[in-house]
C-alpha cells in the first residue's frame, strides 16, 4: 500500500511541476478599463518643440527658396542688361 502511494506521488511530481510552469507562463490578464495616473504627469517626449520645429522649418525653407528665385532672376536680368550695354557700346563704336 505504502509502495503504491509512493509511486503515485512520484508520478504526480512532474505533473504538478509542469502545471505550475504552464500557469506561470500564462499571459497576464488584460487591464480592464483605463486607470488614472497617480502622481505628477510628465510626457517622455515633449510635443511642443517638435510642432514648433516643423512649422519654423517650413517658414525658413519657403523664405530661403523664394529668396533664391529672386536672386537668380536678378542675376539673369543683370546679365541681360550687361549684354545690352556691350551690344550698345559695340554698335556705337562701329558707328564712329
Amino acid at each position, binding site marked *: 500500500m505504502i509502495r503504491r502511494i509512493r509511486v503515485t506521488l512520484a508520478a504526480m511530481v512532474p505533473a504538478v511541476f509542469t502545471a505550475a510552469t504552464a500557469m506561470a507562463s500564462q499571459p497576464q490578464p488584460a487591464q480592464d478599463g483605463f486607470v488614472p495616473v497617480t502622481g505628477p504627469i510628465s510626457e517622455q*517626449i515633449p*510635443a*511642443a518643440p*517638435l*510642432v514648433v*520645429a*516643423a*512649422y519654423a*522649418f*517650413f517658414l525658413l*525653407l*519657403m523664405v530661403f*527658396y*523664394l529668396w533664391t*528665385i529672386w536672386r*537668380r*532672376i536678378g542675376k*539673369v*536680368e543683370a*546679365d*541681360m542688361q550687361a*549684354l*545690352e550695354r*556691350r*551690344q550698345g557700346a559695340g554698335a556705337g563704336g562701329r558707328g564712329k
Partner: protein
Amino acid sequence: MRKLFVPLAVVAAAMFAYAPVGIARVPYESTMLLVQKIFYFHFATWMAVTASVAVCGVASAIYLFKGTAVADHYAVASAELTTIFCTFGLVSGSLWGRKAWGVWWQWDARLTMAFMLEMVFLGYLLVRKYGGPGAEKLAAAMGIFGAATAPFIYKSVDWWRTVHPQTTVMKTLGDKFPAAWNLVWFCTAAFLVLFVVMLAARVQLEYLRAELDRAYLAAEE
C-alpha cells in the same frame, strides 16, 4: 499667368496668415494630442508634391516627345519644387514620428519610397546642372519615371505593413473629426496656391535664362 501672379500671391499670403490661427484653434486629436497638429501642413505638402510630380511628369513627356521648350521650363521648375516640398514632407514626418513612434526615422515602405522620390528628383536637378549637352532629354526621362513612382508611394501603406497610417485615415476623417477635415483641406488649398505662385516665378526664371542664351548666341553671330 502673369496677370494672375500678384492676386494668387496675395491669396497664398492671406491663406498662410490664417492657417496657424486655424491650426491653433482646432481641437486636439484624442490619442496624439498636440503633435498631431503637424498633420495639417504634412498632408498638404504631400498634396503639393503630388501636383508638382504630376506637372513634371506631363511636361517631361511633352518635352521628350515634342521638344517644346516651354514644357521643359515647366518640367525643371516643378522638379525643383518637388524637392522643396518633399524635403518639408520628410522633415515634418520625421518630427511627427519622433513623438508618435518614438523614432526619427523608420525604413518602412512608405518612408523609404518617399525618400527615393526625393533622391530621383535631386538626381534630375544634378543631371540638369552637370549633365552637359543633351542633359535635358535624359532629365526628362528621369522626370517621367519619377512621376510614375507617385501612385506606388500613395498605395504603399495599403499594400505593405508599415508604421505609417493607411489611406483610410483621410477617408474617415470627415465623419470622425470634421474640424480637422475642413482645416486640412484649407491648408491643402493654401499649399496648392503657393505651388502655382512658386511654379510661375520659377518658370519665369527659366524663360529669362532661355532669352539670355538666345541673346548671347545672337551677339556672337
